[in-house]
């Protein structure tokens, strides 16, 4: 089943064209990785999918589960099942992780016409999902990301992913700034959340995350377009040849 279809997407930030005609189709249950040098529009794509303000979509369309995504408010997209694991998660003063997740889970359940979870079920669920990424239960009573280390913030993103059970999870450079142990924990968390009912779009600069998280497809983004698509072997090839290989004119699709 086709989950996400992006057709000829063109996006500008303050009159500067960043994404210059991008096409991508993701079926339910697939894991796609997008690689590419810095400044080619990878994070812009993640933000546009999530509906972050400040981006001008000039052309193209994004269809998510048969609906026009670009007409939806960011919170509506989230309730429809789009989750973005942020590259730089923010701290929220005065709001505990537990309270934040409770509000989010119940908003999404309400949208899907489900009863809110009661306190007991919710607590159970939280403990179980926190264990997936090795997040100690004490973190749940701390304010969202406040005083968390870089690794803890990223683990918290995957914990939230586990709580909200999205259809499409976008991981924006989740591996950046992580040491190898933290990277393994995050990757294991993501692997345990893979399901035929869920797709992933993994954005990364380096290949190393893909050693732990085997993608079904790898795309290479360069200068606002997807210039190469293939399977996981493409990531390895890219790793050995470097991004300069792209600059030397090899931009046909495989």
């Amino acid at each position, binding site marked *: 089943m086709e989950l996400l279809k992006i057709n000829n997407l063109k996006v500008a930030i303050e009159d500067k064209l960043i994404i210059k005609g991008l096409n991508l189709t993701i079926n339910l249950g697939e894991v796609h990785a997008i690689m590419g040098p810095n400044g080619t529009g990878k994070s812009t794509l993640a933000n546009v999918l*999530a*509906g*972050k*303000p400040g981006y001008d979509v000039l052309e193209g369309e994004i269809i998510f589960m048969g609906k026009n995504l670009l007409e939806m*408010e*960011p*919170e509506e*997209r*989230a*309730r429809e099942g789009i*989750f*973005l694991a*942020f590259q730089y*998660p*923010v701290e*929220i*003063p*005065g*709001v*505990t992780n537990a*309270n*934040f997740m409770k*509000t*989010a889970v*119940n*908003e*999404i359940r*309400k*949208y899907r016409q489900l009863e*809110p979870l009661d306190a007991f079920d919710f607590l159970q669920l939280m403990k179980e999902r926190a264990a997936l990424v090795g997040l100690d239960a004490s973190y749940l009573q701390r*304010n969202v990301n406040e005083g968390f280390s870089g690794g803890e913030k990223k683990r918290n993103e995957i914990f*939230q992913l586990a709580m*909200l059970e999205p259809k499409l999870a976008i991981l924006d450079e989740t591996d950046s700034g992580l040491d190898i142990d933290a990277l393994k924990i995050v990757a294991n968390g993501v692997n345990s959340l893979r399901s035929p009912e869920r797709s992933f779009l993994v954005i990364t600069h380096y290949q190393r995350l893909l050693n732990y998280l085997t993608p079904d497809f790898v795309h290479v983004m360069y200068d606002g377009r997807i210039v190469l698509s293939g399977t996981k072997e493409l990531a390895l090839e890219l790793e050995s040849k470097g991004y300069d290989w792209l600059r030397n004119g090899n931009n046909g699709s495989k």
Partner: protein
Amino acid sequence: MPNDELLKEITEQEYKYGFVAPIEQEFAPKGLNEDIIRFIWEKKKEPPFMLEWRLKAFRYWKSMQEPHWAKVEYPPIDYQDIYYYAAPKKLKEKPKSLDEVDPEILRTFEKLGIPLREQEILAGVAVDAVLDSVSVATTFKEKLEELGIIFCSINEAIRNHPDLVQKYLGSVVPYTDNFFAALNSAVFSDGSFVYVPKGVRCPMELSTYFRINASETGQFERTLIIADEGSYVSYLEGCTAPIRDENQLHAAVVELIALKDAEIKYSTVQNWYPGDKEGRGGIYNFVTKRGICLGENSKISWTQVETGSAITWKYPSCILKGDNSVGEFYSIAITNNYQQADTGTKMIHLGKNTRSRIVSKGIAAGRSNNSYRGLVQISKKAVGARNYSQCDSLLIGDKCGAHTFPYIEVNNSNSIVEHEATTSKISDEILFYCNQRGISKEDAIGLIVNGFSREVLNQLPMEFAVEAQKLLSVSLEGSVG
């Protein structure tokens, strides 16, 4: 009530207390002179000592200058263009029972969510209702009298308990204290009076509800609370006013006296009309509130939720005279649109081993300005004194301001003073992060503001905590684009 319903309810309403009730009023002529003071004194049928006191205050006031040290700005106030006395016409004498109260007045308070009919009142709360310049009804009076507790309008107290009033009125806030206290002393017309006798624990919340209804009228209420040795009382005041284009002056004085081993808990939910989105109209709330812990081991605790008024200028303070006495100040001040608030506290440590705790939460949105101003003063004799202060500010948007002016004076070498301060901002990034988790902007702000204010909200009596929580969100409505 679940959070989301609560927020839905409140995000769909404007200032809902902005109506004007069609109650016929009797006014004293506009302006202020000795004849007006005599008029008020006569109307109130007060004993001679009060006239003398009021005139002294008035003469002193005339020699004073309006203070301008606070971080607030407003056009000059014409003190001769204000009605200093307004009373519902049909209310010649305070009614003996609620059946005698003008039904229009009862309806006004019902609309405000303050039903005065005793059977409808929240269990365990006695209410004194003050409309413009007079107290219109006091509930549960008899039940309290059985315990020897006096809860009545200050006007009744002046007539029926002149000894207590003469002993304590002006003992904590003398009329020489400041410009607005002097003005209040000269012209105050009503307010509440509480006396709790020795060893009595007041079994219910005492509450006064202040309402400005008449136009171009100043409200000058006076509250005096005395907790005798070993007694306890919890008191709450609420305030609202109609929506009007003009600014109205509210200059109240509150005095608290706690004797040995006594405790007074004073909570305020202030929701005077704040003015419209362009900053037109609203109440000038210039208030002097001060308590004295006169006896050993006594305690005074102020909790305030300040959401209304165009300008708030107010510093509920504690004079810790008795050894081992305790002062507390918990405050949430919210400003939105063009509101200005300069609020805080003074903790004056005089006795040995006195302790004070200050928790101030300022929330600024729109183009508003929110200042905390506080003084912690530890005298030479206050050995072993301790203070802990925490001042947190939360900014919503980038056109508002939060300011902190802490003053600390320590005059001995074995006291401990701690001060912590933080500033946070609800940025667009935070709002987007919440949106991305399925939470709308309004709910996100509600979540953050309530979390930020929790420590203070927890100090309020249960019923009022819910009310205050709603108010916080209403006040911030429209604060994000």
